[in-house]
């Protein structure tokens, strides 16, 4: 009987081995990059999808007129060249004559015109519409020339066009009403198959005007757990992956066969104070909170030091030395004095909202801030919310304080006009405005001289930090992890995956 049992055991083991071997054999073609991410795109209409998770897919398929390179310089995409009129009221583009949609039809001025008219049409509900309101008319003198006539000088317009939310789509598809159900762009990859929240298959676009892509395609799997993504990298099931959680990212370099790519991003972690509510309407209280916060400690504790303390301006060319900003060195004595001056020597209670897992560090940030602010008597109650509930609450401005990760832009104006102008769409969320902020923003919008713009926005930054409507904390990194056999990927401050066009599989 003992022998019988061991025979059974052996055959059982053999079956298990066979099953595992069958499971790990991989059928995909050799030249496809196998990739994984945690969060899938939520839709295919480039004009309606602002979420990072969607943009990362769509920017492989669609192209805007211009795009940012890794140093955030504007470089050609569908447009080959462009020129602002000296008064900044006219912007002319010459399109790349080689630019073609993935069905082989050339990209024409009519497509550009139709795309922007679609974005501007309120019925489309295009998310970037607010950035293009200065466009008064669009002229197409020939097939490859587009002229945007503006109602007022608008220097940041060009940077706003370098977004997949202003992608050029075929005019014929707009007429047919198929944008969003069919992905047909002029970008480096074609979308062959999409199963939402499960996987997508992309193949290289041989006719792409931007050059030759070195891989045949990309197979993307949605693996909702980042520990599982790391395991899949470890066992070489995938070549390349996007990582959100800094804790998981720091584990990648421990594997000898893997490389971690890190790039500082423009998005910033911030503690928003709602200055339209008491007692945050009191300048001294807000300043006290700013002085009581040890930003480096928040970064070290909540995000294992993965990031950099920042002021409001996070984009290269505009950032300043954060340590020179008001109260960027924790000053408890000053904070306590400010609280006492404001009549809150004994502190007060407030609720801070934060979204579950968005960012991954949100809860930890709230906890560190809670303990830091307790030192000046501010008792913070943390309210964690599901992301969508949080967004709803945040948009209504229905909070005392909010831990947030807000998106950045390559230019300060489109990044902050929604918050710090009197007509900003998110004024209610910002909770604070004054004349200085509004006038500096308007000056920055029309100034064409780069050096002068920098001075204007540097003044804006200093003023913002001093009046402390929010407490800017730190910027983090975007992470991608790859096998050592993958080379050529260049990360960007936008967290873009466009660098996959240069990737080689060895």
């Amino acid at each position: 009987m003992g022998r019988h049992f061991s025979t059974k055991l052996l055959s059982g083991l053999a079956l298990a081995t066979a099953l595992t071997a069958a499971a790990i054999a991989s059928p995909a073609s050799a030249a496809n990059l196998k990739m994984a991410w945690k969060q899938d795109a939520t839709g295919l209409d480039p004009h309606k999808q602002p979420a990072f998770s969607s943009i990362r897919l769509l920017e492989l398929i669609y192209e805007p007129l211009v795009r940012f390179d890794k140093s955030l310089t504007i470089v050609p995409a569908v447009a080959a060249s462009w020129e602002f009129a000296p008064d900044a009221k006219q912007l002319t583009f010459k399109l790349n004559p080689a630019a073609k949609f993935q069905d082989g039809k050339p990209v024409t001025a009519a497509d550009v015109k139709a795309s922007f008219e679609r974005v501007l049409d309120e019925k489309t509900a295009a998310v970037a519409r607010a950035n293009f309101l200065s466009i008064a008319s669009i002229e197409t003198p020939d097939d490859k020339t587009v002229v945007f006539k503006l109602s007022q000088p608008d220097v940041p317009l060009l940077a706003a066009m370098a977004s997949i939310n202003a992608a050029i789509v075929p005019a014929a598809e707009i007429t047919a009403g198929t944008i969003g159900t069919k992905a047909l762009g002029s970008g480096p990859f074609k979308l062959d198959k999409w199963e939402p929240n499960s996987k997508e298959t992309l193949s290289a676009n041989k006719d792409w005007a931007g050059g030759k892509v070195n891989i045949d395609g990309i197979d993307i799997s949605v693996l909702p757990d980042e520990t599982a993504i790391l395991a899949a990298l470890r066992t070489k099931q995938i070549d390349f992956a996007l990582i959100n959680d800094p804790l998981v990212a720091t584990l990648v370099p421990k594997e000898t066969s893997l490389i971690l790519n890190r790039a500082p991003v423009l998005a910033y972690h911030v503690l928003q104070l709602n200055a339209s509510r008491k007692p945050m309407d009191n300048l001294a209280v807000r300043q006290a909170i700013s002085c009581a916060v040890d930003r480096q400690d928040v970064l070290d504790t909540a995000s294992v030091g993965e990031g950099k303390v920042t002021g409001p301006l996070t984009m290269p060319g505009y950032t300043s030395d954060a340590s020179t900003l008001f109260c960027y060195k924790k000053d408890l004595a000053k904070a306590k004095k400010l609280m006492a001056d404001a009549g809150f020597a004994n502190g007060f209670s407030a609720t801070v909202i934060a979204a579950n897992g968005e960012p991954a560090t949100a809860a930890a940030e709230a906890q560190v801030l809670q303990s830091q602010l307790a030192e000046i008597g501010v008792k913070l109650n943390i309210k964690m919310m599901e992301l969508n509930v949080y967004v709803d609450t945040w948009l209504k401005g229905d909070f005392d304080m909010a831990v947030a990760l807000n998106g950045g832009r390559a230019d300060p104006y489109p990044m902050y006009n929604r918050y710090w102008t009197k007509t900003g769409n998110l004024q209610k969320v910002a909770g604070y405005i004054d004349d200085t902020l509004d006038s500096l923003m308007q000056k920055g919008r029309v100034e064409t001289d780069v050096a002068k713009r920098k001075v204007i926005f540097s003044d804006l930054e200093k003023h913002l930090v001093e009046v402390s409507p929010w407490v800017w904390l730190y910027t983090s990194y975007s992470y991608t992890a790859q096998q050592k056999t993958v080379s050529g990927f260049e990360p960007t401050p936008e967290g873009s995956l466009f660098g996959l066009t240069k990737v080689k599989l060895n």
Partner: protein
Amino acid sequence: MSYLARRLLTFPLVMLGVSILVFFAIRMIPGDAITAMLGTEAGLLTPAQRESLAAYFGIDQPILIQYWKWLIGVFQGNLGISVIHGKPVLSIILERFPLTLQLALMSMVVALAVGLPAGVFAATRNEKASDLIVRVLAMIGQSTPNFVVGLLIIYALSAGFGILPTMGEFTPFLTDPLRNLGQMILPAITLGFAFAASVTRISRSAMLDVLSDDYVRTARSKGVPKRSVIWRHALPNALIPVVTLSGVEFGYLLGGAVLVEQIYALPGLGRLVLEAILQRDYALVQGCVLFIAFNFLVVNLLVDLLYVTLDPRIRLGEGG
């Protein structure tokens, strides 16, 4: 009226209650399909843009009218269209269901294959060292969350042995059975783990009860061999609580195993519902919940019918 007919008649009522509950509950959660798609950028929409999107998502009309339209659709066999998938809800559910069913069956097999013998074994060695070991193991098994088990298995296999089932690309059983089983065995073990522990505990205590019954003592005194007493005389009567437990558990499992599907990236019903809720894909949430509720009703009915088979003394629907 027969028991079966009466039970079947309650189905539509229960389903109607479920439909009302899910329809209004999902809409009561703050945030809607628009904020789910646009996030904080939704704040940049003009009122006209918002209206246009609301019409697109079908949330522009008063809620009662929305419900009425949806209910009429359901009666016509149309559960609506998922805005995320751009496909009919029913076809998405039917695509995902085979995986969920298979996972439920496999984890059930794992649980019963381990739990039942362990429970019987422990009962026959009541209060001995081996009984104690089984009970401690069962306690540990029951109190370890399945996502911990799943993550540990994944970590141990990938870090220790450099192997892992293919994730992210699921192979249906009929396409390639071997590959499919390779993908499903670990999730089934993960799910079956805690369930096996419950089966062990409940079959042990049921066995102990039965073993002290008169008829078992009679059988023993008649000289029936010990094995036969346990497996032929005692076990069938000890099975009723196990069947109840398994039925309830199986009903739950048919609703999808969210955490295990997340960890192993399996495209099952659990993940489908979770994603539909997070993205406020109302039609999909409603369709899934209705489908899951229906399965639960069917499984419960089958369990009741199974009682009669196991114990002919039970008469369904008579008396209290």
